C-alpha cells in the first residue's frame, strides 16, 4: 500500500515524507493527476496561507480529483494547512472557499497571548476513532499555526486548548484532518500515522488493492 502525498507547491514537505517512512508507511510524493486519481489513500499536506493553497490545487486541476476520491469512499488525510483546506471556507486575507469536505470555517485564533500557536500542546479525546488507538487524553503533539477550524462537535475527534478550543483531529466519514504535525510529534505522532496506515489497510484494501 502506497500513500500518495499531493505535491502542489505549498512549502517544504520533505520532512513529512520522512515522518511517514519512520512510521513504516510507504509514500509517493506527486502532482501527477493519474497517480492521484488512482490512489487508495491521499495525503494533503500544506504550510502557508489558505487562499494560495486552494489556488494551487485549482490550477493543477486537483480539486475535482480530491472530491471524486472522497465520493468513492476512499480515505484522505489532511495535515496542518491541508487539514484547514478540508473545511468550507477560510478567513485568512479575506474569505475563501475551501474543499467543503467537513462542515465549518477556518478562523484566526484570537485572545492568545502569543501567535503563532507554536509548540507542544495536549490532546483531549472527544470521540473514538481507529486513528486514536492507544492515544490517551493528555498526549502532547506539536502545533504550528495561527488559524483554527471552527466546527461542530460531531466531527471533533480530539481538541486542544489555546485560549480557544482548537480542533486538533477531525473526521467526516473517510476524511481525517490533523491540525498539528504528526511527523514532528515524537512517539504520539508516529502512533497516529501508524494507526492511520492500519485503518487504511484494514478498512479499505484487500491484498493491497482497494476493497470494492
Amino acid at each position: 500500500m502506497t500513500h500518495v502525498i499531493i505535491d502542489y507547491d505549498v512549502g517544504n514537505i520533505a520532512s513529512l515524507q520522512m515522518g511517514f517512512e519512520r512510521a513504516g508507511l510507504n509514500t509517493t510524493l506527486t502532482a501527477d493527476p493519474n497517480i492521484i486519481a488512482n490512489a487508495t489513500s491521499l495525503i494533503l499536506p500544506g504550510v502557508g496561507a489558505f487562499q494560495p493553497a486552494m489556488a494551487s490545487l485549482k490550477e493543477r486541476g486537483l480539486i475535482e480529483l480530491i472530491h471524486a476520491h472522497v465520493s468513492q469512499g476512499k480515505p484522505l488525510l489532511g495535515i496542518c494547512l491541508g487539514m484547514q483546506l478540508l473545511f468550507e471556507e477560510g478567513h485568512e486575507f479575506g474569505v475563501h472557499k475551501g474543499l467543503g469536505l467537513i462542515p465549518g470555517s477556518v478562523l484566526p485564533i484570537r485572545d492568545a497571548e502569543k501567535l503563532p500557536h507554536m509548540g507542544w500542546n495536549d490532546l483531549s479525546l472527544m470521540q473514538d476513532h481507529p486513528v486514536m488507538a492507544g492515544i490517551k487524553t493528555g498526549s502532547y503533539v506539536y502545533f504550528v499555526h495561527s488559524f483554527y477550524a471552527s466546527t461542530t462537535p460531531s466531527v471533533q475527534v480530539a481538541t486542544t486548548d489555546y485560549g480557544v478550543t482548537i480542533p486538533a483531529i477531525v473526521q467526516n466519514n473517510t476524511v481525517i484532518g490533523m491540525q498539528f504535525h504528526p511527523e514532528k510529534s515524537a512517539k504520539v505522532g508516529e502512533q497516529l500515522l501508524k494507526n492511520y496506515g492500519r485503518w487504511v489497510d484494514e478498512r479499505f484494501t484487500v491484498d493491497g488493492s482497494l476493497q470494492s
Partner: protein
Amino acid sequence: MLARRIIPCLDVDAGRVVKGQRFQAIKDVADPATLAKRYALEGADELVFYDITASSDTRPIGHAFVKAVAQTINIPFCVGGGITSVSDMAFILNQGADKISINTAAVQNESLIREGALKFGSQCIVVSIDIKKVDGTYTVFTHGGRTNTQMDAIQWAKRAVELGAGELVLNTMDTDGVQDGYDTEFIQRITKSVNVPVIASGGAGRLEHFVDAAKAGADGLLAASVFHFQTLSIADVKDALEKAHIPVRKESL
C-alpha cells in the same frame, strides 16, 4: 496547555558534534544524528544545532548533517550558524530543518529577517541574540560575542519581532558557561516586551535554574553542557518543572 520546551543545543564543526564526549553508552558521540536521536528519546522537545564551522568553504559539507538529522528524529529542530541569505535558509529548510536561526547576519542585514519570514513564514525564523550587560544596559554583541554593537538588547528584540522573527533565543553571555543560573531579570523584561516565544539560553547548571527561568516567563529553556556532560537528565528537569506546576510534555505511550 502549551508545554514549556526543553531544548538541548549541539555545536557542530565540519559535520561533527563538539563537546559530546561524555556519552559513554553510544559509539559515535560526534555524529549529529546519533546524538540527536538520543536526546529525542530522552524527551527533548526540540533541538538546536549551531554550525560553528570556521571556514565557509567547508560549510556546505558541514550542513549535510541536517538531512541525516531530519531522517532520524521525530521532533522539531532549528539550525543556525553561517546563514547569511534566503537561499541559505531555503537549502537548510529543504534538508528537513524546521527553523533557521540567525544572529550576526540579522544585525548586519535586517532585511534578512523580513525576507525569510515572507518566504518561509515567521515560525521558521528564529533570531538569536548574544547579550552582555555593559554599564547597566543589556547590549547586543555579534561575531560570537566579540563585537559590541552598542545596540540596546530590548530594542533590538522588539525590532526583530517587528521585522518578522517568530521566536527569539536570548543568550546572556555573562551567565553562559558559568552554570550559575539564567538571567531571570532579563527574561522577565523581554517576555513583557515581545509577543513571540522566548528561549532562554546561558547559565543552566542546576534544576532550580530551569524552574526560575520558566517562572520568569521563558517559553523554552536551552542548555548545552548540563545535557552533554549528563550532569542533569531531561527527565530530571521536567520532573522539577512539573513539581513547580509548570506544564511539560511527557511521553504517554
